[in-house]
């Protein structure tokens, strides 16, 4: 079974997204912060990571940098809001090796397609 790590500091987002993918036969693990995500990514080696950009503590961009630094093969999709500062951050994420990004609010079909294409 493919393994997906969902990183978001909002508990409702984590739970909803986790349920959504579990129903679709994906093994889901979650992390509530960048720090936790770095640790879990190292131990669990997920096939794909869904990473929220805007988080308290170390943010998504920094988390991406660290995880990719530890494991250059890590596949990461960024989740961004519509705010300009978050949209601009995506250029940086691409340089750091993120493979794709999705915008909140999410069309769940689209999210599903992007995730399954990457798994």
């Amino acid at each position: 079974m493919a393994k997906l790590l969902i990183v978001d500091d909002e508990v409702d987002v984590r739970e909803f997204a986790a349920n959504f993918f579990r129903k679709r036969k994906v093994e889901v693990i979650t992390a509530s912060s960048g720090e936790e995500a770095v640790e879990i990514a190292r131990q669990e080696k997920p096939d794909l990571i869904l990473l929220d950009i805007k988080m308290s503590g170390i943010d998504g961009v920094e988390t991406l940098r660290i995880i990719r630094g530890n494991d250059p093969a890590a596949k990461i999709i960024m989740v961004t809001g519509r705010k300009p500062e978050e949209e601009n951050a995506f250029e940086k994420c691409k340089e750091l090796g993120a493979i794709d990004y999705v915008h909140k609010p999410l069309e769940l079909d689209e999210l599903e397609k992007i995730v399954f294409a990457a798994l």
Partner: protein
Amino acid sequence: MRVDYKKELESAAKSMILVHEPDVLIKMIVRMIVQKVKVSHAGILLHKNGNSYVLTVSRGPSGIKIPAGFARMDTDNPLIRIFRDPVYRSLTNGGVFVCKEVLKQLSNKKLSAEQKEILKKALYQMEIFDTAVCVPSYHRQDLLGLLLLGKKEKKKDFAKDELDFFMALASDVAMAIRNAQLFKELENELDKKQRLFIHTIIALAAAIDAKDHYTHGHTSRVTSLSLEIARRFAQEHKDMINDSFLEHLHVAGLLHDIGKIGIPESILNKQGPLDELERQKMKEHPMVGAAILTPIKELEDAILGVKYHHESFDGSGYPQGLKGDHIPLIAAIISVADTFDAMTTDRPYRKGLSKEDAIGEIKRVSGKQLNPQVAQTFVKLYEEGKI
């Protein structure tokens, strides 16, 4: 206990009218549904600008919680199409979409393969959000939103009166949301007008500064000093200053010298002290300013500041020689700010005073030229290091 849906609907409609904030309204409606009908959760997908319906709120005691603004459905989403697209409207019987009913419908031989296909896809969308019933909300022909309801307590079926209640509620909700949106738009429009107004005033004020070279920046300094004084003054005289006073003062500060537009540049920009005739001409500027602004009815209170900012507390000022409390407070405040700025600004024929000397001068003319209470407030601001 049975719920009297007709009564609930009436009371809901009543409170909806009172709420003008679309987001608050939607939360209120969802909360009411969850409480009265006892469903696991309820959410509302609301049409936002463009092609998206955004899940605005979703809550409930036991069902899934989806954070606001996390999920959306675009207009090509099957569940949206089935309610929006006239071709598919017959599938929903113009009303509520109940999961169980739809499943039954799928075995109906009269439906085409294409119709069955979209029904299946719509059901799949409902399943994503754990939805048992979908209630559309229309305004005229437009789909404003979709109410998504979870399962009922103990997985009971929805009764007919409950479904009717949802439909009636949805149409009330559509109206209320539409009203709230219109109200919001109106407010934004007013904000815009207000900004346009203040920018126009600033442009007018800039016209004076452009003409009078020696007082460059004077207008904006007097305006901000005046507002500082008024806010400090309000701390001790709460009843005399409110928000609308500050707005008028803002405008009056910007326009206090607008009458100088009518003074010849040879006088305004003269390289030396004015002679008697020139001084008389210069003294006309408050009246000229008031005359320029009088046609603008809304500026009535601000004009007082323009017209009387050269009156003196002891009655020796101009244009009317008003005395003491007969001088409007708005003018008395501008007068102090204006005097201070004039004293501390360099002129070609004299250097400006230092702040300390200017404060000394303010104290000296307090009760003579200047309103003593306002002058005292100004001195306090200085002592508090705010000037």
